[in-house]
């Protein structure tokens, strides 16, 4: 099945929004890394450095009331959907400012106010939940759309297969975004599947599957917009594979012993930032100074947020009794 993707360049505002999202994601990760490295604070993240262009496209393709499901490696996605940086960093650091005040952790950030209904640490388990979100949209008579992000490795899970099939059978308003960063933990994608393009897996469900350059926010924006449009119109789900790379290893601190040096170097030559900056400048959207200012604003926003986080109390013991159930009646003893 085919998907009709525009090859037009979006308007300047869209282009700059994407840039802002990308810089915000980069700044957030850099700030956390710095703090971990200096011993300022402790925590764990699964870096998305290299994958920011996908967040860029995501931030402009979705409506605010659209929903997002993502993974542990989803900080860029969360920022794209509008989760306040303090909620993200607060949760990473287990502080009161965190999205769930330290109870969830990096892997489990939700922010329903902006449509983030789930982040999950169980690989492959996001798509079934996203199917349910999309089904709810239909049953509630809303035209909102659900986007679910997952990795290349996740497409080998049974959960992925069942979910895509179900979404296809039910023509649900779902956009399946595979962030193919070519690695699952320590294992490169070519060792875990024989297909060359993950997008080709869509054929098993008779839905459109499309691969785009995941380091090009414009390509991502256009593909996602087409998929979102298809979903919103009631025509059903689309699998969008964004080919990208994971520059920072599996987790912060990963020595990446398994990584061929030239593979990483080669991949880093495709870094989404310099490319996109050149593009914006060449197309007269912004000059270098303007871009530097936007980047600086993102850094400042993150700096401000981390202050809020570090000023907030540590996760409170008083939290423990709450939220096991709606009330305490169900809790044994």
């Amino acid at each position: 099945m085919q998907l009709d993707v525009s090859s037009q360049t979006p308007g300047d505002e869209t282009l700059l929004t994407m840039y802002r999202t990308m810089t915000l994601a980069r700044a957030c990760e850099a700030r956390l890394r710095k703090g971990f490295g200096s011993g300022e604070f402790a925590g764990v993240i699964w870096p998305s450095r290299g994958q920011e262009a996908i967040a860029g496209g995501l931030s402009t393709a979705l409506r605010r009331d659209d929903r997002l499901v993502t993974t542990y490696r989803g900080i860029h996605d969360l920022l794209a959907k509008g989760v306040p940086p303090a909620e993200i960093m607060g949760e990473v650091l287990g502080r009161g400012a965190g999205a769930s005040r330290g109870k969830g952790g990096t892997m489990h950030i939700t922010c329903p106010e902006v449509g983030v209904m789930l982040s999950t640490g169980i690989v492959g388990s996001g798509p079934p939940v996203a199917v349910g979100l999309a089904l709810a949209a239909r049953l509630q008579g809303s035209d909102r759309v659900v986007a679910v992000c997952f990795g290349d490795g996740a497409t080998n899970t049974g959960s992925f297969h069942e979910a895509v099939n179900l979404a296809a059978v039910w023509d649900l308003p779902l956009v399946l975004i595979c962030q193919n960063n070519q690695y699952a933990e320590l294992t490169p994608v070519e060792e875990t599947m024989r297909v060359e393009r993950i997008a080709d897996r869509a054929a098993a469900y008779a839905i459109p599957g499309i691969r785009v350059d995941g380091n090009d926010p414009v390509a991502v924006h256009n593909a996602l917009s087409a998929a979102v449009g298809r979903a919103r119109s009631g025509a059903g789900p689309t699998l969008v594979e964004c080919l990208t790379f994971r520059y920072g290893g599996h987790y912060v601190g990963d020595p990446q012993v398994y990584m061929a040096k030239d593979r990483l170097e080669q991949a880093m030559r495709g870094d989404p930032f310099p490319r996109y900056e050149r593009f914006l400048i060449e197309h007269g959207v912004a000059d270098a100074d303007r871009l530097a200012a936007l980047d600086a604003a993102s850094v400042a926003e993150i700096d401000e947020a981390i202050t809020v986080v570090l000023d907030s109390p540590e996760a409170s013991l008083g939290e423990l009794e709450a939220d096991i159930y709606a009330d305490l009646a169900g809790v044994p003893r």
Partner: protein
Amino acid sequence: MTTGTYTMRQALHTAFDSALAEDSRVFMLGEDIADPGGGVTGLTKGLSTTYGKERVRDTPISEAAIAGAAVGAALEGMLPVAEIMIMDFVGIALDQIANHAAKARFMSAGRTPCPVTFRTPVYGGSGNGATHSQSLEAWFMHVPGLKVIVPSTPADAEGLLRSAIFDPDPCVFIDETALHGTRGPRLDTPDRRVPLGKADVKRPGTDLTVITYGRGVRDALAAAESLSRDGIEAEVVDLRTLLPLDLPTVLDSVGRTRRAVIAHYAVEFAGPGAELAARISHDLFGRLAAPVARVGSRFMPIPASTRLESQVSPSPQKIEETVRKVMEDSRG
């Protein structure tokens, strides 16, 4: 509607029907549940015709996605009922149930409650063998965040199922096909619900308490009748929900009778009765006239031959024998 009798099958149908009728957030999904089939045992017959196939949805054979889709819809405030056709298949869906549904509220600090219901029948007693006969409720009891329900009568089945559907937390509702034909009085509570977490004394007695649920209640009542002929009056406490567990009612009863037998079709070892026996022994330490006894399924996969299965499962006879033994062994 509130007088007369009905079967548990009719009671479950009634609960689904009324919940679908009264709240547009309620919907059902599962394999083969829509018409014309109306469920492999015909239990959901007519519902998709009345409420439409949008709200009573057939699914592919995809237990993980069924459970996950129900979780997702619940996160949006819907009240889904997901059917895992036979309880033995939960091993396919357990990640969604235990890691997602059960933890959604807590991990989000209350931002994403998950009012989903998983309905999953037990087929034990049907001669279908080890992979189609298990009672695995102990797995769910051990997962904080879930509620676990097993009815023994038609009225309880209707009322508890309705409570589960409208409960703000994830519920695992377990009915046993061996009881689907059981007939009993209709539910007559005003809201047509039975509260979760409240045990029910199904038979009063003074000499010993049998604590049980589901099929065990049927067996315990039969045993109690027989024992009564010999002057032994057993109280039968039907837990109705295993989580929340109504320990006060249990302790009150055993506190009076000073003797307890716990019965269930789940495997005895590390089964639901272990927690109960541990609690009773602890909380009533020094006040019991005899050790707490358990009658569960024997420790083995369930054989397909019903002749063999009946030797492995509890029965009124086994409960009766155990009660007699406890009475004999009692001191003081």
